[in-house]
């Protein structure tokens, strides 16, 4: 009987822990439904100022500049663009023209000081040759349009 009680206490304790953890996860879920804001939202003043938040978009082509330990670049949603300054390790997939999510604070000068930079990749998977073919086709299309 004793071991039975012990087992039951253990399981009930586990259940209680799980309920607590679930509550925490749910609150995290609610807070992060908007995981990041777009540069347009930031420009319209919809993003929270004065506290840390995330901006998501594309790293603007030609915007990456390194100055010592600092990296300067701009995050854009093609409509608006926010300048970002960051010092720290960048993920391998962080590239111009690719998606990125930056976490940090917006300064009064309109420059976003990032404390963390994450790369956001798309759902396309293909061998390098296929990617090369697509790039070339796009290049040709562009030339034809001109």
């Amino acid at each position, binding site marked *: 009987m004793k071991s039975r009680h012990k087992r*039951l206490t253990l*399981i*009930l304790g*586990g*259940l209680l822990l*799980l*309920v607590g*953890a*679930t509550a925490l*996860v*749910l609150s*995290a*879920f609610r*807070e*992060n*439904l*908007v*995981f*990041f804001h*777009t540069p347009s939202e930031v420009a319209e003043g919809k993003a929270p100022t004065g506290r840390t938040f995330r901006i*998501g978009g594309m790293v603007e082509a030609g915007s990456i500049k390194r100055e010592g330990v600092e990296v300067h670049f701009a995050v854009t949603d093609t409509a608006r663009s926010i300048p970002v300054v960051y010092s720290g*390790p*960048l*993920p*391998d*997939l*962080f590239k111009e023209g690719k998606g990125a*999510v930056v976490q940090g604070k917006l300064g009064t000068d309109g420059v976003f000081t990032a404390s*963390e*930079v*994450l*790369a*956001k*990749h*798309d*759902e*396309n*998977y*293909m*061998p*390098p*040759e*296929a*990617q*090369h073919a697509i790039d070339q086709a796009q290049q040709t299309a562009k030339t034809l349009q001109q």
Partner: protein
Amino acid sequence: MSTSESRFNLYHYAAPQAFYPVAGKLAPVFAVIALVLTTVGLWISFFKAPTDAVQGEVYRIIFIHVPAAWMSMFVFLVMAFWSAIGLAMNTRLSALMAQALAPTGAMFCFVALWTGALWGRPTWGAYWVWDARLTSQLLLLFLYLGYMALVAAIDDPRRRDKAGAILCLVGAVNVPIIYFSVKWWNTLHQGASVSLTKAPSMATIMLSGMLVMAFAAWAYTIAVALYRVRVLILERERHADWVRGELARLGEAN
């Protein structure tokens, strides 16, 4: 004649006593299928599928990550289905089916989270973020563990089945939330590469590797759940005479 016969059969196999030998015959078949599919799937994943243009070799995690994530969601839906049947028709077997599936679903759920973390670090730059997709998948793991703890905590079989079924049905709401989270909200997690509404955005050979691995996960889950439900049936029906006979037979075999 055929309809009355098939109906008779369906009800016949809904009885634990009748299902027990059927599960015993089917389980090894699915185990062999799982083994063959896993071998073929791993061969495609590592020796046929080319490297990815953007991510390099690390993308090969997809061949377990996606099948495991699909399986973890699908198993919970199947558990909810059996729970609904159990509540509506009062069949003993359906609750046992749900209980037999839970540990395997939880295992795949953990695998999806684990491989996702190891994939996220080199690509996104973080093991974990609290975006809607990852958070709702973590919640699914808690639902599995909560279901298993609840079922283990209640001694009375009828109350146990009922409580488990209700948790399953309520928790099943989370599954579409996981699936559509990448559409409904902005997340760090990318959208679906494979869905019913659009052409897959993957090279064919990569896609076939992933699908073979997904079928392997299906076969594995069915096999393990059938083996497990046999144990659950013996435990639940231990007062029945046929169980005594079966145990005697198993005792001789051991």
